[in-house]
């Protein structure tokens, strides 16, 4: 019998959540006994070639490419987990949401005190995905089945959640794993 597939994506985050995935340490050996990793930055598989049981999303959506990837995950995964505060609530990238996009770009590329840009060029290449007016958490774009809080959520949180899902049990995290003060 083939093992269930797990895919992961890093959208508008800092990669910290993916580092937290790796923080399960040697338990990753146990994990790959029961699942196969499919499309993920960890193994650099770029496209879906088969249906996945679980998709783990780090980060919200700040640009059109993020949206396309997230929608692709929704199409190809049975269960989607928004993993970490950026995915769930927008997080640090969403701090720009109160400021018009033009002002953000001008501050980053032209007016910022440490910027040296005599020609005042704001990068604008076809390769660069268009930014969204506002950074969106994942559940504003596709249906999300589970949200794991934390910045990043601890490796144990993910471990518990994955084990519950793979065993078809309710995801019932102990208080210590979802308490942050």
């Amino acid at each position, binding site marked *: 019998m083939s093992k269930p597939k797990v895919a992961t994506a890093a959208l508008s985050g800092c990669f910290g959540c993916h580092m937290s995935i790796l923080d399960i340490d040697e338990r990753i050996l146990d994990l790959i006994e029961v699942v196969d990793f499919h499309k993920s930055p960890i193994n650099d598989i770029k496209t879906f070639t088969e249906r996945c049981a679980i998709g783990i999303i780090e980060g919200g959506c700040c640009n*059109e490419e993020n949206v396309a990837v997230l929608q692709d995950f929704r199409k190809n995964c049975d269960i989607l987990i928004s993993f970490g505060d950026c995915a769930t609530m927008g997080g640090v990238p969403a701090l720009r949401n109160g400021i018009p996009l033009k002002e953000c770009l001008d501050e980053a590329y032209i007016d910022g005190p440490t910027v040296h840009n005599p020609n005042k060029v704001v990068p604008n290449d076809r390769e660069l995905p268009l930014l969204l007016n506002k950074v*969106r958490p994942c559940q504003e774009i596709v249906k999300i089945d589970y949200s794991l809080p934390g910045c990043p959520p601890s490796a144990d949180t993910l471990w518990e959640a994955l084990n519950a899902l793979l065993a078809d049990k309710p995801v019932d995290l102990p208080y210590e794993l979802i308490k942050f003060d």
Partner: protein
Amino acid sequence: MSQNLETFVKHVCRENGNDAGRMMDICRAVQAEFRCVSPEAMTLIAQECNCDRSQVEGVVSFYHFFSTKKQGEVVIWLCDDVIDEMKGSADVAEALKQELGVDFGQTTTDGKFTLGWTPCMGLPDQAPAAMINEELVTNLTGDKIREMVRELRAGASVKDLVKVPGDGMNADPRLNTMVSNNIRVKGPVIFADIENAVGLKAALAKTPEEVIEEVKTSGLRGRGGAGFSTGLKWMFTRGAEGEQKYIMCNADEGEPGTFKDRIILTECADMVFEGMTIAGYAIGSTEGVLYLRGEYAYMKEYLDSVLEERRDAGLLGKNVAGKEGFDYDIRVQLGAGAYVCGEESALISSCEGTRGDVKTRPPYPAQKGYKGKPTSVNNVETFASVNRIFVNSGQWFSATGSCGSSGTKLLSVSGDCKRPGIYEVPFGMKLIDFLKMCGGEDAIAVQVGGPSGELVNPDAFGRSIEYDDLATGGSMMVFGPGRDVLKVASKFLEFFVEESCGYCTPCRAGNVFIKERLDRIIDGKGDKDDIAYLEQLCNTVKVTSRCGLGQTSPNPVTSTLKNFRGEYESRIQENPDRMELSFDINAELTEAAAITGRMSEHF
């Protein structure tokens, strides 16, 4: 100018005893004089009253009618209640925008006019309505408001706008307002004839304990919404530890669709003050405060004059009505536009000169209220009923109404009915009979008890109006065929979003999310998950909010989910792909497309 400001602030603060507890009065005076409470003024007030500047700024930023930016000489607040909307407030708004050349929230360049929205100001039976400075103007149309603006521009005063005053005492020179009473049905408690001082003297002939006993016998329950036994509340306040005690009359009347306290204060002010005096005697208090919502500021002078008459007649002051040792007086405290100040502990905060902050309970006001002393807060109608109880008797009172809800109730009716206005009916009346009475038989929905109450469907029209069935503080909004109940619910949520004091997250943020999700369904962009989400979120907001505002704010949604579920189900979509239907990528890329001058590569 700033010399002026300093002199004025010093003067006003001195007049108010340099007492930070009188912050509302001080800020109201400064706002009226300078059309704002500027940062400079706030600093001065803090110095004069020897309080933190943050207290002053807290107050100025909290209340709707205070502003730090200079407003126009004439401020026009148009009512944006749902009933006003049904009666054409959009036309009035459009006319105002055209005539003044500014949008809502703005001031004309000549500094003459400011335009703003405000929630229900107690005039839905004569909607659309607006408040122009302190004058209430009613039954507006686009043409009427244009004419008013032109007159004001030509130098007329706001009082000049009153061409034909309203009925009853509204025409009294002390009121002289175009507001009408629209009393449709008079009952035996509030609107029957009554003679001054008869009830008071009957009460003073008893001991305070006997007075409380009599109120208990009457079965009177609070008319402000919660329906707590008035006799018990007084007993607790009387029994509470403390030399000084206070009586407060809640005339905040902020629940949209409620306007019965306005009519009681207009026609039966003496009854209310007499009820407050009896209450003072019963609990052992020497001071009463009537908290009048800012929208009713036009009544302040009138109410003050009634109080003065009562002092002259010996019914207030030292040895009230000849009762040796019973000293009692009443003052009127004006609010400045904040629905939450109707909640009794927020009302007390406001009277104490701070933001309208809700206090954690216990301790209840009966134990620790105004200035930390035992306080009984009761509604206007409750006090008026008390007066009647002592003119007739507790026994007599309890014979009217239904078991568990004695006496009569004033209902203020608005919306799609032939005879909007005030009805005094015995408790226990069937909703259907009431609808016949007011000419609203073809209603498809009735909002009983205002936004925080319940929106009922025709299947429930056989239910009766009383505390243990369809409870209402007086608001009855009738919606006729063709009205969209989900849009009504959304409008109510907008009200709660505006009026949340922001203290606790479930109410501050939760109501925003409830409204957003509801609007999604109204726009045809929802699916069944959104209904489940609404059910869950409404419950969270209800059980985790700190005060009655947040505990009831999801009601428009929970009651439509219960009573009008088909309206939700017929608008949701099948969604097998599980994409969020409300997300529109093209709408999200407008700014980037404009900045970069290119189109999406991905979509």
